[in-house]
């Protein structure tokens, strides 16, 4: 575990102990990342701000669940933010347009430190996704990053829903095999 990861893990544990000062430090250390996640998926600033609030309330309430998990602390936090943002996305009425808003979004900054931390995992995943056909690799990446549903992916790639489902399921199992090599 890296130092940064150990610090975040420690702050989550202290949050589980209802330590508010630790919770605030956890927020300071992670909010920019989780806000970027919510913004990328929801593509709407006001919605992303609401989501961020809900996400940290969840983190406060569920911090004790982290203790037994095998997930790295930052991955656990990002998973909570992604899950919440995708749930909000699915709850929107179809036709919610966000293209115009998307154009206004600033380019998120990359933190070089955070990037270095996950470099080996990132390269490995990149490599394994890269071994899939282009269209399938794009589907996996855009589903994860943008929160696209099977239906949206099928529409984008102009294939029937069931075809997309079969494609992606096979791709996921290939990906798992590749990552376990």
């Amino acid at each position, binding site marked *: 575990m890296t130092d940064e990861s150990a610090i975040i893990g420690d702050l989550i544990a202290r949050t589980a102990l209802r330590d508010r000062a630790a919770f605030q430090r956890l927020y300071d250390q992670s909010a920019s990342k989780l806000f970027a996640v919510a913004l*990328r998926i929801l593509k709407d600033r006001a919605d*992303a701000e609401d989501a961020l*609030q809900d996400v940290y309330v969840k983190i406060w309430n569920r911090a*004790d669940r982290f203790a037994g998990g095998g997930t790295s602390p930052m991955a656990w936090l990002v998973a909570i933010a992604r899950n919440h943002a995708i749930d909000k996305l699915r709850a929107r009425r179809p036709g919610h347009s966000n293209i115009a808003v998307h154009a206004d979004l600033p380019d998120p900054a990359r933190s070089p430190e955070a990037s270095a931390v996950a470099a080996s995992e990132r390269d490995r995943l*990149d490599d394994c996704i890269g071994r899939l056909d282009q269209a399938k690799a794009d589907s996996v990446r855009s589903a994860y990053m943008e929160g696209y549903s099977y239906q949206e992916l099928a529409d984008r790639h102009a294939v029937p829903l069931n075809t997309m489902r079969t494609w992606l399921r096979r791709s996921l*199992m290939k990906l798992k095999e590749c990552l376990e090599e």
Partner: protein
Amino acid sequence: MTDGKEHGDGERDDDVVAAEFVLGVLTAGERADAARRVDTDRSFAMRVAAWEERFSGMNDAFGETAPPASAWTRIEDQLFALDPTKKVPSAGLWTSLVFWRGLAIAGFAMLAVLAGAFLTREAQRIAPEPELVAALSAADSNAAFVALRESGGTLRITSVGAPPPEGRDHELWVIAGEDAPVSLGLLAGDEAVTAVLPAGIAALDPSQLTLAVSLEPRGGSPTGQPTGPVVAAGKLKNI
């Protein structure tokens, strides 16, 4: 079905659903079903955690965007608005009397059930009779303990719940009033252990004392203060 060669199809299907859930491609209804399973089905939850870890290599690509300063205030207001200590950085749970009282009440409800077997087992061994007993438990935790205080400053404590996860230890603490917790040592699986209260604490009114068990790295807290979550807590009661 040609792919179910190594595992049962059920397991493989579970793994596919876990992957689809983490990737985010499911419908709202399917996501709600999967989220419920994460809360109730441990093996499914572990599959989901494994996929979260696998895909975490893409998390860098989200970059970082600072939220507005008002975001933190909104979170604080929602979580702590009713609390008079709002916005005062607190030393945390360990000094929160309200929290301990709540736990003690919850723990006491379990007391009769848990203490019965232990008392029977220990009664022959201990003389004179133990004077105080504590049931230690917490919501959202399978760990539970029963403690007996023998005359003087000696405690006998035994687990009546789940053991710590592999590679971790349960550490026992005593908290006097609002003081920092004092370690009483590690607990040893199913075996009852004896812990000796420091003289200054043993002399206090037992109603001021709270016993707590935290989950720590193997060998105990590296800092001398609890670093992991509280898995059980309770107060000594007269029996």
